[in-house]
């Protein structure tokens, strides 16, 4: 009997017993559905973190010189934490010394951040905004473009012009139905003139990137961000990975010298980059992927057990049919193939249904929860292979029982 005949036979069998077949493949369907959904979510988060977060928030080929990491995996011992707190602050002088030492092809920017509550003539109060006092190259490094108006120039930064570039949401909140350009926004009583509105940025980890106020570092804004108590960080971007690394080495040398560190002493500062921030994520991702495989695997095992039982019942129900087929010349392997293909086809159907439902679940999660999700193509392939594989494994025992039946006894059965 050819494979095609066996598949055709299996399809007929499934069609004849629709409801029974449906319940049979439920386990596999659910297993595959969760596999697809979990992998989609992990995949979505992974893209989100690695592309959106790492590149938007931290920048490409960029490191931030900081006192200690801002994005860590959370497993910081209190000892480490205390050590971090003893470290010297990063000062404006440090930032400038680093700039002096940078190689060609780099951008440099002071980035001092805090949370603040802007006030305008039209609106007092509202959600806190990210307030950043930065150097002019900040916009280049963060790849920030304005929707309206302009960003401030290096000259404006040098002289400390009281101007700000604001996020889209900030503009809408503080200047409802108005053109914010040229209007005044106050921070801790200090007036700033809006000269630009950023393009829509979206949000990262539920934090709106459209709620921010960016002004020149040398303006009064640095009083808002309390720069004298140390900078949030110094951003350095290389035009390529080697230049970034070279810049990091130069910055390290400068900082160690400035902090009078002996060769045996470790760094008392930190270079935060997308890689360092993502190291925590990578370990989380491993756990998620393992979870995403183990949980559906339980579903698949249950599915396999169900299929095995149903196939055993089918073999018992169809003993006479098996006898007839054997009498007419079916060899052991024909019977074996018939039941294996039937189990595999059934299970594959379950997998396909599960893939469809998994897609649906992934889409629903994306629509109704803040979790991102994106279906990974490989998970579809894996699901199909798993589906057919589960069927074959579950079918082996029932099929071999069917194949070993004595035709005389089988023909006599009712």
């Amino acid at each position, binding site marked *: *009997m*050819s494979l095609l*005949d066996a598949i055709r036979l299996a399809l*007929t069998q499934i069609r*004849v017993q629709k409801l029974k077949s449906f319940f049979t493949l439920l386990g596999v369907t659910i297993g595959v559905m969760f596999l697809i959904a979990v992998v989609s979510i992990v995949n979505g988060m992974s893209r989100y973190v690695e592309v959106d977060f790492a590149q938007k928030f931290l920048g490409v080929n960029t490191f931030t010189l900081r006192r200690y990491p801002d994005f860590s995996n959370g497993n910081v011992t209190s000892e480490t934490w205390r050590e971090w707190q003893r470290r010297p602050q990063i000062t404006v002088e440090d930032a400038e010394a680093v700039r002096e030492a940078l190689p060609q092809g780099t951008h440099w920017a002071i980035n001092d951040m805090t949370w603040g509550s802007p006030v305008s003539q039209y609106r007092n109060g509202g959600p806190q905004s990210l307030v950043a006092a930065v150097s002019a190259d900040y916009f280049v490094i963060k790849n920030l473009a304005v929707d309206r108006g302009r960003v401030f120039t290096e000259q404006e930064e040098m002289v400390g012009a009281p101007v700000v570039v604001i996020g889209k949401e900030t503009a809408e909140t503080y200047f409802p139905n108005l053109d914010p350009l040229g209007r005044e926004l106050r921070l801790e009583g200090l007036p700033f003139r809006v000269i630009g509105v950023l393009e829509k940025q979206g949000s990262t980890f539920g934090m709106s990137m459209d709620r921010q106020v960016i002004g020149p570092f040398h303006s009064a804004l640095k009083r808002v961000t309390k720069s004298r108590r140390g900078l949030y960080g110094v951003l350095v971007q290389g035009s390529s990975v080697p230049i970034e690394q070279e810049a990091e080495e130069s910055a390290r040398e400068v900082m160690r010298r400035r902090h009078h560190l002996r060769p045996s002493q470790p760094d008392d500062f930190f270079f935060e980059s997308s890689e360092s921030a993502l190291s925590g994520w990578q370990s989380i991702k491993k756990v998620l992927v393992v979870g995403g495989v183990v949980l559906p695997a339980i579903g698949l095992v249950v599915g396999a057990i169900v299929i095995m039982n149903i196939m055993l019942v089918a073999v018992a129900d169809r003993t*006479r*049919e098996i*006898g*007839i*087929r*054997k*009498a*007419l*010349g*079916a*060899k*052991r*392997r*024909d019977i074996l193939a018939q039941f294996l293909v039937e189990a595999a086809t059934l299970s594959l159907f379950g997998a396909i249904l599960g893939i469809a439902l998994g897609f649906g679940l992934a889409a629903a999660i994306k629509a109704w929860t803040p979790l991102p999700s994106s279906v990974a193509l490989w998970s579809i392939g894996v699901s199909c292979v798993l589906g057919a594989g589960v069927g074959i494994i579950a079918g082996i025992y029932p099929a071999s029982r069917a194949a070993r039946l004595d*035709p*005389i006894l089988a*023909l006599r059965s009712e």
Partner: protein
Amino acid sequence: MSLTEQELALSTTAERQAVTGLPGAVPSQDWVIVTRGITRNYDMGGEVVHALRGVELAVRRNEYVAIMGPSGSGKSTLMNLIGCLDTPTAGEYWLNGVLVSRMADDELARIRNREIGFVFQTFNLLPRASALHNVELPLVYAGVASAERRARAKEALERVQLADRMDHRPNELSGGQRQRVAIARALVNRPAILLADEPTGNLDSTTSEEIMRVFEELSRSGQTVIMVTHEPDIASHARRVVVLRDGRISSDEPRERFVASLAARA
């Protein structure tokens, strides 16, 4: 040297061996079935049951033989052996020039597929398949391509006058029609023997006659037919009647003598 049907039926083992050959020898082309002292024992929980105690049977091509016997005579066992569903405990069984008594399962399956056409008392059609698909089944296991399968199955159904019932399922057919579908299925692979087990056991007398006419025609067209039955009326349609008793052949005679002895007993 060849014996007539009558002479064959009357011959002794020694005489038969003279024409069909001694144990171990390949029978000549004429012989479709040659059994040499086949026995079949069953182990029933430590007790050995001797279902067949040395059966010597030789059937020539194009014969129409009925095997009769009361229940427990071993006729079902003999039928299973002739049909290659089982192998003998001892003895030789040559089918169409091939020694099948020592074959393994899958080889037997192949022989059943090519050389034997079964017709059962309970028809044994697949209930969910159409008549055409039922008839195609042996060809599926013979590895015949689907288009040819269909054509040959149609042809076989035409032979039993069921061309117009091809797409019907067994439960949409009468008993006689079902048995004709089974006959078409038995013939579709052009087997060496048509082996019928109580083919009229589930049919009324009119339909039984109809099936007997089909067998008669098949026999006349050159098909070897072996029919196992316990009904003398049905057996007397065959041209030769073999009677089994206690696992041995008790009589093997042409129809005329069988009918005559039936009449004498009655």
